[in-house]
């Protein structure tokens, strides 16, 4: 029997982790196997078969299960390929921001002194600016493209990690097992890697999963304003922007991508929520309060 650490066992037992994690995994698989799953090529147009309704309505047909958009492209295929963009942005941006944010947080939290001051000021400057505006300006500066979107999200959201992880590092550094490790002969690097990082990792995973949801939303906002990916790339935000013109005649064209975003953000939040509950030491006390 592999000896799971109590935290890991508690995580897997938490229903939210199973549901959120399962949903997120499903989304990642859909994104990965998009070419196999999608019935049609997302870019393939059929100008004679535009704005067809979903299959279950009167004049819908099963070959185009969710109907077609204003150019006769299959909405289901675009939804599936849209997952590719969303998941790529979500995973790469979230982990990128997590990496940058937590490394700086470790330095700031463990060493303190002027690095802490500088990183603190950088976080203050970032926090004095609505993130949506900053990402828009960055996109204007960088120009369109998926990699630019990911870079913009990382530049905007690393402070979200830095702030939270730094306070957690400060809490851990107060614990006696840090000086104890030093006394056991650990070098500063060993202390950080072997003692602090494992203590911070569960919280980091929680933040990463929530950040995946945020990244999907930011990408949707950018492509909604027209500053995100190239038009040939089927992204949910682009689908929403296009479908808005035909909101009255073909509302499903709008509702489908909105659902896409909703499901992926929901999966991220539920997973994050589950991880936070299983990681949160105070939870046991809290259950005693329920009376």
């Amino acid at each position, binding site marked *: 029997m592999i000896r799971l650490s109590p935290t890991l066992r508690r995580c897997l037992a938490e229903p939210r982790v199973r549901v959120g994690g399962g949903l997120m995994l499903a989304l990642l698989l859909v994104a990965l196997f998009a070419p196999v799953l999608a019935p049609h090529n997302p870019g393939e147009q059929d100008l004679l078969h535009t704005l067809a309704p979903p299959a279950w309505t009167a004049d819908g047909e099963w070959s185009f299960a969710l109907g077609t958009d204003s150019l006769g492209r299959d909405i289901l295929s675009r939804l599936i390929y849209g997952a590719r963009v969303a998941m790529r942005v979500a995973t790469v941006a979230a982990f990128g921001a997590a990496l940058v944010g937590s490394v700086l947080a470790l330095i700031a939290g463990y060493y303190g002194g002027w690095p802490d001051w500088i990183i603190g000021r950088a976080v203050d400057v970032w*926090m*004095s600016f609505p993130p949506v505006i900053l990402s828009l300006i960055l996109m*204007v*500066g960088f120009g369109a493209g998926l990699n630019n979107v990911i870079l913009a999200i990382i530049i905007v959201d690393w402070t979200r990690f830095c702030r939270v992880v730094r306070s957690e590092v400060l809490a851990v550094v107060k614990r006696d097992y840090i000086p104890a490790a030093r006394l056991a002969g650990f070098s500063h690097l060993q202390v950080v890697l072997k003692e602090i990082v494992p203590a911070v990792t569960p919280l980091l995973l929680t933040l990463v999963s929530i950040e995946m*949801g945020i990244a999907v939303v930011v990408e*949707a906002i950018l492509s909604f304003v027209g500053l995100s990916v190239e038009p040939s790339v089927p992204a949910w935000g682009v689908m929403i922007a296009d479908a808005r013109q035909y909101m009255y005649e073909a509302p499903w064209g709008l509702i489908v991508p909105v659902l896409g975003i909703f499901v992926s953000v929901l999966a991220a939040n539920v997973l994050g929520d589950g991880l936070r509950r299983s990681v949160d030491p105070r939870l046991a006390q809290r259950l005693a309060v329920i009376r």
Partner: protein
Amino acid sequence: MIESGFGIVYRRCLVAVPTLLVVSVLVFVVLRLLPADPLAMSLPPNATQAEMEEMRHDMGFDRPIPVQYAIWLGQIGRGDFGTSIQFRRSVSDLILAALPTTLELVAVGLTLGILLGIGCGVLMFAWRGTAKEQIADLGSVVVMSIPEFLWAILLILGLGVGVRMLPFIGRIDAQMTVPTTTGFLLIDTLIAGNLPAFLSVLEHLALPAFSLALGLTPLIMRVLRSSLFDTYVEDYIALARLRGLSERRILLRHALKNAALPTVSLIGVQAGFMFGGTLLVEVIYTFPGIGNLMVQALRNHDLPLIQGIALVYCVIVLVLNTVVEVAYLRLNPKLRKA
């Protein structure tokens, strides 16, 4: 670090100036990363190449970035934020005309969000341990998973078009005109004593403000509920119970005041972010606020206007952070001067 209210305001102002400088440099440089030619948009069809070069020189776009920044900073020193390339009007005029709309929208959205958030938070805590709590928790995750601008669209689809209950275009009914004194329509209509106009403005604010509120409510609800849990674990709550105080008094007099602390700081952060949220909501509901202005400016590479609005956003968020910190100080005596 113990400090008085004025100490905070004083310190914040000191910090504000360098922050604004850093943000302005950041925005200034990022906008000029790509050789986007801001002048391209505004030339008559029969303009010649020579005329274009001359205009580029007049506007100073051919000079190196640091020089351009110095000129721009000099102008700001004199209170002139430059002129918008696409609107040919001074940036400060444009922003002053648009700012009240956004402030009014955020004020209503924020108030709605806070009231709903605190109400649901306390309610959910009161239902702790029951099935209702699970449902409310699930509900909060669902609401949290839909960003403001999608709520804006869904509300239009649902309440604006489907059920035709609420308007979703502009700030007031087309037929009504109200003399704009403050720019805050809710106030102007009251000054004008025009009740139907006031109602129309409220009606027009309903959907956009509610979309913004839905972005904030679940967050406040969850933070308040978890900090209430943290507070109820404390000894002074148990002792209050042993002193024979009723559960209601304990919740309202003792627990809520302590649980308010983390909630206030969350509201501060989220209020700043809400201004980002208004960007899209204003576009979708055609509210002529600075969000709308910013989207137009971004689409047309109108650099002076983008820089001007960016600074305004920064000032707003800095003011908000100061207000929250002072409020936090009022609530938490530990920080106050002995």
